[in-house]
């Protein structure tokens, strides 16, 4: 029993040791210096560290990268030991708080660091990040990490300067669970939607061509977007099955999308009706109408593209965020208390001597 007590006592002394704290902090610092240069030198491997939680990032690492990532695991281990050391110091102080209450500020800083370390580990493990997610108006987007929850963007209003450069984006965003409205916020720069462990911040916005407004004699302006159905005379039906903003026909005759930029738009059309053979084909808007349409007396001209506005949001779920805020608050209070205590001690000429 006394041997066990002695072992526990020695281990406890070690983990309350100031020298251990300095050694661990020094090792973490050196590893972080090394790691920062590795990160900067290998953007292909580390470039998406901020876009994913640490756990997700580690899972998508290709094999054979241990030589460049070992330092992260080592730093993590040292951080765990450092947190344990800090926790033991805090507990030791708390057990003797009557005699050491003057160091409350310093030990609140210690507690804040512990909470931050735990929060970071928790968020890295259980958090989910969805970076730069394109969200169209009125589209319901499932929230990562929060099953059953959805985000809806009701309006996007870009704010431009006099030169036409975008300055800000005003997004009317709702967070719902089924029919229940949980939060609604105008999300803009430095004004996120924050709900429990979820934070939604704006990144960008844009417009994507969804189709074309065309003019057809007899019917006037038509909105040709995916899903549109135009009833023509004699029971003919013209359907729009698809739209590419920038299409090209490849060697085997297949039409594929090259990009989302409006360069060479094409509509996938479907014509059917009584007494006519069904037809399905691509109409490249920069070219002539397909013969099959003209032969059936169908003529229309593209007038203007139809754009759908989208916003680009970062949607992050971090279960450790509140704990991190608590840790930060303790750091703040501890720092202010320590400052006040420092000057009080200096007035009393109280400082450690050699």
């Amino acid at each position, binding site marked *: 029993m006394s041997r066990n007590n002695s072992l526990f006592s020695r281990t406890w002394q070690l983990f309350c040791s*100031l020298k251990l704290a300095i050694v661990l*902090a*020094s090792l973490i610092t050196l590893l972080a210096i090394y790691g920062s240069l590795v990160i900067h030198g290998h953007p292909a491997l580390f470039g998406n560290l*901020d876009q994913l939680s640490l756990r997700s990032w580690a899972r998508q690492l290709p094999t054979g990268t241990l030589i460049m990532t070992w330092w992260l695991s080592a730093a993590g281990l040292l951080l765990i030991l450092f947190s344990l050391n800090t926790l033991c110091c805090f507990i030791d102080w708390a057990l003797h708080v009557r005699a050491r209450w003057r160091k409350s500020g310093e030990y609140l800083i210690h507690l804040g660091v512990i909470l931050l370390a735990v929060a970071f580990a928790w968020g890295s493990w259980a958090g989910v990040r969805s970076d730069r997610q394109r969200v169209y108006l009125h589209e319901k987007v499932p929230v990562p990490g929060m099953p059953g929850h959805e985000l809806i963007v009701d309006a996007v209003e870009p704010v431009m300067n006099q030169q036409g450069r975008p300055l800000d984006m005003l997004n009317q965003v709702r967070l719902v669970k089924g029919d229940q409205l949980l939060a609604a916020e105008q999300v803009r720069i*430095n004004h*996120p939607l924050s709900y429990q462990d979820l*934070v939604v911040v704006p990144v960008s916005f844009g417009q994507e061509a969804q189709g074309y407004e065309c003019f057809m004699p007899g019917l006037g302006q038509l909105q040709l977007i995916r899903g549109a159905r135009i009833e023509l005379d004699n029971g003919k039906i013209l359907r729009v099955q698809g739209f590419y903003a920038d299409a090209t026909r490849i060697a085997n005759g297949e039409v594929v999308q090259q990009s989302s930029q409006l360069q060479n738009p094409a509509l996938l059309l479907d014509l059917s009706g009584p007494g006519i053979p069904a037809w399905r084909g691509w109409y490249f808007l920069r070219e002539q109408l397909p013969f099959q349409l003209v032969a059936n007396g169908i003529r229309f001209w593209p007038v203007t593209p139809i754009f759908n506005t989208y916003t680009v949001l970062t949607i992050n779920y971090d279960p450790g965020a509140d704990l991190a805020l608590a840790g930060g608050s303790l750091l703040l209070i501890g720092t202010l208390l320590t400052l006040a205590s420092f000057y009080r001690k200096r007035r009393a000429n109280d*400082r450690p001597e*050699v």
Partner: protein
Amino acid sequence: MLQYQTPLLVASFALYLVAFLGYLMRRPEPGMVLLWPRVCLSLGFLSHSVCLVIRWLEAGYLPVTNLFSTQFFFSWCLVLVFLYFEYRYRIGSSGLFVVAVNLLLLGVALPRDPAIPVLIPNLDTPLFTLHIVFSFLGYALFTMAFSLGVLYLARQLGMQRLLELRQLRKLNEEAIFLGFCMFTLCMIAGCIWAYIAWGYYFSWNIKSLWSLIVWLFYAGMCHAKFIRRWQGTGYALLSIAGFAVVLFTYLGIGLLLESNHPLD
């Protein structure tokens, strides 16, 4: 009112230069007050502060968003730190290095365009002001700590007309401690702002990582002063090494590498 900023800044520079030369040439006994350089420095600081207030009022925000304004504000912080130690402890010429850095910063800033850029929405938050103020105060205190560390070693090597070793050590510890407190407040404001702006409070960007390195280094130093082996010479050497880390974090990354804190 902006038409007064350049004359005020030039006046500050001139007064700082006179004070610097005064401290350099007269080099009083430690603890003695050399009145006229102190007055010149104080008047220069007053002129500098008025200029800062004018710029702040005209801009509607603390203008620290381009290279000119960061140099302007950092030099203001350096003089503030020097005056704190001068009035409190009469360090006199022991703080010459800080005054010299201040002169260098202002000298480089003066030829630049002082126009205040329009505030972009990304920086339109009180957290930006808090982050910047505490950051530069921290850097200024670390600069003072470096200066005191070098003087400690010089005193050990026998250089006279400097403060006593005990006093230098005490001031060095105070500069490190205050710098660490300011930098902690800077990190707290920065992390909260990062969460609001980016959706996460810690970024793996090189600037954020090196800021953490600076914080860890000086946290270690706050503990090292209690270890007998690290007191005195060891602490002075750490202050010098810490300043190298600070220089790389503030200037090296901002000017040489890509980060989320560009200096230009």
